């Protein structure tokens, strides 16, 4: 999605002189196209994420549309209070880009994992969260949210090759997208890991279980109505996210089920344990934490056969 982000931003910046790109000194072999085309609108703010968000706040107040880029935890957790007291409090169109969602930074280790950004930032009403599942959806989402008057946080994967079958670049703020339909169980996923939900659904079909796969790509507005409508016929649902389970996708789905009075039992797949200090490639991390296609398959079989 990184290439999709930069390419899309370059296209938008051609027509919109308000757009600036700020980086916390990251983005090697990624941000160069923007820097080369718009050198006066590119700003390396240094390894100083708090200040970068403060600067973006001042720029946005004056009419600019600053996109502030860093690795997910550095873009979200380090400057959290600057985000709250800056663009959120002042309702300014600052765009924050957290790169490397979930376990994508693999061997870089746990300091670089983006496992809490959505849960933490979801505590801020007024901050729209966008979590695309693949590059095509990322491009659509960046375009659709360009003119939102308030701040936006984008959680983007680095991998430009991921493509979620059936999604076809669809994005609508506050809506959920169904990429596969089945009648036995609903799989609700968010971010790059949506591909694993689709894989899991494919494997479930081999067991005669048909799964609906739902992609959630935004919070604030939350796709509550869509989820309530989609989940209404199901007795079983599984949420899948490369995030800690507190406050993120699983929490949203649980809230919808509870507050809409749905007769649906939810199994939340996400990171539940504190890091043991180990690191590894994303796929192996997904497997370790029970989030890959096989783990989703196992959870779904358990849910359907044993009534969860």
């Amino acid at each position, binding site marked *: 999605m990184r290439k999709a982000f930069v390419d899309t931003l370059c296209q938008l910046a051609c027509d919109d002189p308000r757009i600036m790109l700020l980086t916390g000194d990251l983005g090697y072999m990624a941000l160069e196209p923007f820097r080369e085309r718009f050198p006066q609108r590119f700003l390396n703010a240094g390894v100083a994420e708090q200040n970068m968000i403060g600067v973006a706040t*001042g720029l946005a107040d004056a009419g600019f549309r600053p996109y502030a880029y860093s690795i997910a935890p550095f873009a979200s957790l380090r400057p959290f209070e600057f985000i709250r007291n800056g663009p959120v409090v002042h309702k300014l169109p600052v765009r924050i880009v957290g790169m490397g969602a979930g376990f994508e930074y693999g061997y870089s280790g746990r300091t670089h994992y983006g496992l809490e950004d959505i849960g933490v930032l979801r505590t801020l009403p007024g901050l729209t969260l966008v979590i695309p599942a693949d590059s095509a959806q990322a491009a659509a989402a960046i375009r659709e949210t360009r003119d939102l008057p308030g701040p936006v946080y984008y959680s983007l994967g680095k991998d430009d090759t991921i493509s979620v079958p059936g999604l076809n670049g669809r994005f609508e703020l506050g809506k959920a997208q169904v990429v596969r339909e089945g009648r036995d169980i609903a799989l609700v996923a968010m971010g790059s890991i949506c591909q694993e939900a689709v894989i899991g659904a494919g494997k479930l079909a081999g067991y005669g279980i048909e799964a609906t796969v739902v992609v959630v790509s935004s919070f604030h507005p939350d796709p509550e109505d869509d989820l309530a409508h989609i989940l209404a016929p199901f007795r079983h649902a599984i949420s899948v996210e490369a995030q800690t389970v507190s406050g993120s996708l699983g929490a949203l789905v649980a809230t919808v089920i509870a507050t809409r009075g749905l007769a649906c039992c939810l199994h939340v797949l996400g990171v539940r344990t504190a890091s043991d200090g180990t690191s590894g490639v994303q796929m192996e991390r997904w497997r370790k934490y029970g989030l890959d296609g096989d783990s989703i398959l196992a959870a779904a079989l358990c849910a359907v056969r044993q009534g969860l």
Partner: protein
Amino acid sequence: MSLPARCYDKHSREGDSFVGHDISPKQVRRIILSQSRRASVGHIGSCLCVVEILSALYSSVLRAASPDDPDRDRFILSKGHAGLALYASLVLRGWLDEAALETFCGENTLFAVHPEVGVPGVDFSTGSLGQGLSIACGAALAARLQASRRRVFCLISDGELNEGSTWEAAMFAAHHRLSNLHAIIDCNGQQALGRTSDIMGTSNLAERWKAFGWRTQEVDGHSVPQLVAALAAPSAGERPHIVVAKTVFGKGVSYMERGIPVTQTHLPVQPVNWHYLPMSEHEYWLAMEELEQSN
């Protein structure tokens, strides 16, 4: 570059002859004391020590036709706990109705201890220390990119220098040569639990900021002429500008300056008392009497 996004450049500064507004420090202090007493809140010492700085800014430095003039100079009170001093200055500048201050620290008020952007004349909400200078950097950078002559002023406290983010902003401003950025340090030597020299020393402040690439000046923070001379002069050179203003915590009320809790005798004598304490009725009248007898 073709970046201007709003209408700033339509506003020529030519002919925008800045006419000084009569904002007397004594009047500012009168409002601070009366509203602090009415609302029975603290932070009085922190407000009193920046009175001359705000009087200088709002009488003779900030160029602004109105609080929502898009090309006005910006002011950020990074030490947001002196919000009442800012409100008082805005009243005397004519941008706020003094009657509105009757809601200060009342229920459902916009006038909290720390200023909110919804108040006319408050450019940015503040209150969490160490954030204002970063926003000021963005505002100053925006002005330059938009080829606007507007300047940005930011008042920070010496205690606030404990925050690492302040130094992130200090480096950023110098690196990007934000000469339209003017910071003022309220150097009162006090922070929340004691003296700055005892908690995290801030000696040689001018030298420190100079080493960070700033143009520095040291002034008496209670001399309006010195403050105006330092701040009203046009931005110069390529360096951001900082004025180290030596102030006295609780300035103008001698028992506050000396840290004496007049009627709360169970407390020790220490200047930090008047970071927190509200005034009793007796203390209020003592303060007002001293104020009225002062020049």
